[in-house]
């Protein structure tokens, strides 16, 4: 299967959109585009499983990456366009597809500059897909950068609240992150000077950006120790590594719903994926050295994020800070460096992606109708908007880790994996991370109790409508994903393990 299709389809959709006139045409083409992406993602999943030999056939293809494709790009600098997938990538691509369909459906009623909105959204998705399939570090960085500027425009133009400030802050912090990543990448590049490192192509120069090649080499330890912080912090800024997480609350809250869904659901996972693939896998010695710091920062993010969430008054801020807390689990899992913990981190990436997309979708629907996001002004929505309230509650329960929904499986795997790491400090970190489930329960139930339950706060709310068809479809799609992982996590676990 040609992986570049995943990038080409959004790009083609973007081009088509440029030629369409009229709002409904734009929407339909965008929806068609993302639906094709979803079909492609499922097809990829199926083909991948077939190749790996899951399901009783003879022992499958056990190579590290499947469906590889390589094309020389700047051969003088040994940069190729090299793509391939393994289990983790497939899972992330599936996540992206789900969230994108949800995002497009939820944005059905955007009135101003609809075409530009969808163009930017699709560009974002192209960037994300490209990021997940890249096997060449430069290509990876390229796609990472592709996805930063559209976010700035989306928030700054279609956002709400302090959108210009939030857009600027987000863009600058993410750019700073990318800059650090680039320094790290260059560090890696210039330290891969071993004969025979570069495989395909002409002169066989010593430096390379190629991921599989670097993974087999031993990057000198001094270089690792120097450049690992750059890479980890750079990617970590994307995943809300404390203390560089402050773009998250303002960015997510001021963004339009679809952009929030993408930001929290996928963009934050770009960082996690980058940390795992690039920082930790390519520089294992440094990862072990810095592991206490990573664990410490992640634990702080989890606990501190949870406590900060309790005090928020705006629904989107609640969700944004809760994202900081949950993404802390991802970094904790990666930092613990045990296989189970890393599995848990990947599961948490996917579970949190779906969950937070659902949550933002629900909040967006509520905001569209009541024009307020303040918890104290909302109340009794269960009676008026039962469908939206139900998906709100489901998202909330997933956030607090109720078994049967995906959050539980992910968090438990992280906890078990973290506990397996010997050492008192790590056990303490695990205990603190576990303690966050109580705080999460408190703020989720407070938010739910005040907005969804209770008497109807404002008599005007009585006339509001429940979800329209597109919103229902988006909600159902994301809930289906959450339940699929929650009730039967073994398929995801196996996928990641392969």
């Amino acid at each position, binding site marked *: 299967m040609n992986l570049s299709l995943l990038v080409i389809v959004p790009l083609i959709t973007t081009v088509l959109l440029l030629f369409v006139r009229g709002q409904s045409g734009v929407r339909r083409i965008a929806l068609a585009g993302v639906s094709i992406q979803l079909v492609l993602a499922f097809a990829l999943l199926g083909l991948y499983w077939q190749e790996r030999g899951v399901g009783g056939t003879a022992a499958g293809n056990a190579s590290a990456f499947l469906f590889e494709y390589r094309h020389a790009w700047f051969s003088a600098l040994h940069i190729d366009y090299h793509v391939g997938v393994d289990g983790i990538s497939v899972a992330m691509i599936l996540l992206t597809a789900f969230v994108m369909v949800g995002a497009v459906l939820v944005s059905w009623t955007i009135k101003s500059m609809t075409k530009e909105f969808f163009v930017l959204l699709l560009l974002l998705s192209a960037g994300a897909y490209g990021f997940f399939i890249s096997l060449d570090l430069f290509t990876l960085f390229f796609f990472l950068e592709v996805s930063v500027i559209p976010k700035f425009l989306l928030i700054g133009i279609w956002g709400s609240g302090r959108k210009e400030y939030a857009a600027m802050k987000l863009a600058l912090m993410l750019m700073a992150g990318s800059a650090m990543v680039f320094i790290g990448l260059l560090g890696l590049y210039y330290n891969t000077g071993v004969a025979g490192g570069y495989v395909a192509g002409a002169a066989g120069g010593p430096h390379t950006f190629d991921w599989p090649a670097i993974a087999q080499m031993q990057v000198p330890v001094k270089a690792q120790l120097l450049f690992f912080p750059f890479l980890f912090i750079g990617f970590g800024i994307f995943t809300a590594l404390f203390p560089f997480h402050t773009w998250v609350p303002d960015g997510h809250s001021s963004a339009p719903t679809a952009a929030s869904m993408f930001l929290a659901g996928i963009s934050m996972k770009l960082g996690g994926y980058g940390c795992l693939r690039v920082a930790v896998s390519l520089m294992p010695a440094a990862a072990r050295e810095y592991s206490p710091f990573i664990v410490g920062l992640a634990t702080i993010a989890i606990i501190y994020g949870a406590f900060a969430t309790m005090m928020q008054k705006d629904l989107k801020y609640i969700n944004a800070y809760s994202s900081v807390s949950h993404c802390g689990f991802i970094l904790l899992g990666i930092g613990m460096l045990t296989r189970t913990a890393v599995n848990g981190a990947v599961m948490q990436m996917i579970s949190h992606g779906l969950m937070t997309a659902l949550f933002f979708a629900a909040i967006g629907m509520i905001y569209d109708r009541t024009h307020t996001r303040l918890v104290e002004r909302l109340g*009794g929505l269960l009676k008026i908007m039962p469908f939206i309230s139900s998906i709100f509650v489901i998202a909330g329960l997933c956030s607090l880790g109720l078994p049967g929904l995906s959050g539980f499986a992910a968090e*438990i795997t992280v906890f*078990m994996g973290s506990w397996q790491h010997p050492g008192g400090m790590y056990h303490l970190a695990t205990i603190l991370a576990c303690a966050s*489930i*109580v705080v999460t329960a408190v703020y989720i139930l*407070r938010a739910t109790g005040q907005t969804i*339950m*209770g*008497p109807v706060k404002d008599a005007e709310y009585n006339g509001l409508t429940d979800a329209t068809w597109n919103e229902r479809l988006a909600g159902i799609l994301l809930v289906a994903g959450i339940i699929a992982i929650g009730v039967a996590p073994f398929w995801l*676990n196996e996928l990641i393990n392969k």
Partner: protein
Amino acid sequence: MPNAAYLIIVLVPLLPLLGFVILGLFGRKVVKNYSGGLGTALVFFSTCIAMWVGYDYFATGAGPDGAYHAFKVLNIHWLSFGPGFSIDMDLLVDPISVMMAVVVSFISLMVHIFSLGYMKGEQRYGTYYAYLGLFTFSMLGLVLSANIFEMYIFWELVGCSSYLLIGFYYDRPSAVAAAKKAFVVTRFADLGFLIGILILSFQTKTLGFGELIQMLGPGGQSIADGLGVPGARGVFLGFPVVSWGLALIFVGGAGKSALFPLHVWLPDAMEGPTPVSALIHAATMVVAGVYLVARLYILYANAVDVSQLILYVGVFSAFLAALIACTQSDIKRILAYSTMSQIGYMMFALGTGSSGNTSGYTASMFHLFTHAFFKALLFLCAGVIIHRVHSNEMKDMGGLRKQLPLTHVCFLIACLAISGIPPFSGFFSKEEILSAAWPTNKFVYGLGLFTSGLTAFYMFRLYFSVFWRRAPGIATSHHGATQLNHGAIAPNHGATAAHHGSTPLSMRLPLVILAVCTVFTGFIPFSHYITFDGRPGETVGPGLNAIPPVATALLGIGMAAWLYKKENSRPQQAAEAFRGLYSFARHKFYIDEVYLFVTKKIIFNGIGRPAAWIDKHIVDGLMNGLAKGTAAVSASIKGFQSGKVQDYAWFFFIGIAGLTVLFIYIYT
């Protein structure tokens, strides 16, 4: 193969789950009026299967040595953490799990039937039965779990169902708050449970109950020693790591079972509909903690320090709850505290194991069994009473024995059972518990005895106040104007216009069945079937050691009759006499206020607010500061672009001069 024969037990939890799914998706629109029927039918089949399996297991399932062994049914690896180390969705068939399955499904069936009448006309009828189905599924899954993490999963699901059901009347802020409180307090306890699981599974690398007990119990002592902190030889802060794990798991159980000091959610949970209270907060969910400790009984019996903890926490909770119940005036709250008290009994019976006396296990399970029946009966009778009187307060009731004759008889039977009067079931079970306590710890025995007297007193206080006190026929108060906090009646309820007529059959049938059970279950030779290692024990009939409990109970009943049978001022005087203690107990010993203080002042204001403040001003301030700094630097050097030609010329000159000097230096 015995394993395959019990495979049908898989249906027992799955049928209610099916009910939940169907009613959850379609209950609102499509099925509406048939929801009750559908839910009840599914649970009925579940109960039948459970009873059939129970009969089969106990009658024919004994192994060659006459002992009842555990069988695992199913073996699905749900989430794996390593080779052989996974959360499995297995079902365990062993004496207590089968017993519990029967109890849970049976009581659930009774509640389903009762709700047909009680919740009739309710607008969210379908949703109610969906939630009941979810709860029944979760509880059955919990008791049939073979893997400790599987039990944790169902534990959480039970908590979620409880949240949904307590908050069923969601437009009442008090109900929403009560649901949240229940969930958060039990979540806090679940944290202990989770960490306990992590500790215990750390080096045993297994999560199945059988394997855990094997590796950590008496046989596997060396593994237990090797657990945990390196260099400390398995000891952490003076206690073995296994004890820490077990103690934390007990904390989890204590939260769900409403033991001191995690009991604060149970009285507030009475905001839910009364049948829900009967099912969840009396007979089934709250005993989950007891069940968990019983599951790991062998390990607890081995850990002396943790057993002591269980013993004291259990008996203290029993005593405290009894004291508070003597002063409460809301019928459901009295019953809630009485539940807490009885669970305390069950718990401390399990705590007697460390002294080598293992009859506590049987006694506890027996009391759990009998308690389920009479407590459910008490709550359902309370439901009928509340339904009739439209109020929860005792002062609005009185002299109801002529108006509700069947309820009167059933309530009396249940009160006699809970007070431990022969030949009702409570007598046998309570007496066994006290006998198990006597050799272990005399103080605990004494406190347990005194508490049973108190139990008789407050239960009969309730009985006399409700059914006697005033002359029959005097209009019971129709001032439904009770305080906002006591709602068992939904705003939409009351469409049953026949509430002044006789109680519908659907509400009377469960009462009768439960009353019959209460009378006769005492005679089951429990220890023949359920002992800690499956081997049948001998049943000792009640002997001389039955006299103290019965005597104290009769004393309590007598005092209650003297004070409450006729309307008089003696209760007032008694309350005056004990003024301090009375008011202290009436306010539930201010424990709720302490919790509120800790959460609001310390946690919210002390940790939450500073965290948010730091994030907004310091961490974010740093980022904003960076931006401001950059802007300041930029502002300060922008003067170079002054727009004045002469300045530019000056800069050219300096540059050229500098370069010249540089080159001169380089080339000489």
